C-alpha cells in the first residue's frame, strides 16, 4: 500500500467551470500518473510526472493540465470542464529503480460534469 489519497472523492460540476483534483502520496515515489477510466476504454493515461516540476503528456491530455510542486502532490486541472470529461480519475505512483513498472493506485475521484 503506497499511501495514496485523492481528493475530492466525488464531485459534480457544471460545464465551463475549472476543476482541480489532488493526489497525495506518502511513499516518496518519483513517478506519478493521472488516468481516466471509462467503460469500453479502460485506463487511459492523461499526464504523468517524473519528478518535481517535470511533467509530460499522455494519450488523452487535451483539456487537462498538471502541476507537481512537491514530490508528494500531483494536481490535475480541467481548465474548463466539458461533459466528455465525466469519468473516474485515478492517480498512481511508481517507485524509481524497481524496473518492473509496478504502479500503486489511489481510490479514484468520480467526476460528473453537467
Amino acid at each position, binding site marked *: 500500500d503506497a499511501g495514496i489519497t485523492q481528493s475530492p472523492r466525488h464531485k459534480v460540476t457544471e460545464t465551463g467551470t475549472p476543476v482541480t483534483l489532488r493526489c497525495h502520496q506518502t511513499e516518496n515515489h518519483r513517478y506519478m500518473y493521472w488516468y481516466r477510466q471509462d467503460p469500453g476504454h*479502460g*485506463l487511459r493515461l492523461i499526464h*504523468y510526472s517524473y519528478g518535481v516540476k517535470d511533467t509530460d503528456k*499522455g494519450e488523452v491530455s487535451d483539456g487537462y493540465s498538471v502541476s507537481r510542486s512537491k514530490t508528494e502532490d500531483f494536481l490535475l486541472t480541467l481548465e474548463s470542464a466539458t461533459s466528455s470529461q465525466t469519468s473516474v480519475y*485515478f492517480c*498512481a505512483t511508481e517507485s524509481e529503480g524497481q524496473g518492473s*513498472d*509496478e504502479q500503486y*493506485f489511489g*481510490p479514484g475521484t468520480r467526476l460528473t460534469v453537467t
Partner: protein
Amino acid sequence: TQLLEQSPQFLSIQEGENLTVYCNSSSVFSSLQWYRQEPGEGPVLLVTVVTGGEVKKLKRLTFQFGDARKDSSLHITAAQPGDTGLYLCAGAPGRDDKIIFGKGTRLHILP
C-alpha cells in the same frame, strides 16, 4: 498502436469452478502486471511476471508469462465470490515506453 487484448471481456461462473483469462499482444513486453479492481476502488497490483515462461502462484491464482513474452494468463482454481472483480493486465513494451493497460476481464463468481 501497441495493444493488450484481454479475453473474455465478461465471465460469470459458479463458486468452486476453475477459470482462465488471457492477456495477448503482438508486441514483446519486458514485464507484465496483473491488477484486480473492485467496484469503487483503484486497481490493486497482484503480481508481476518478468521472465518468458515464468509461472507465479498467489494462493489459488496462477499467473503465467508466455515464452515469447507477448502474452499472459491468469488461472483461478476453485473460484470464490471474493474473486469477483475487474482483472487488468498491464505492461510497457519497451524500457522507455509508458505502461499500457488492457480493458480488463470482468469476473463475477456466483455463490
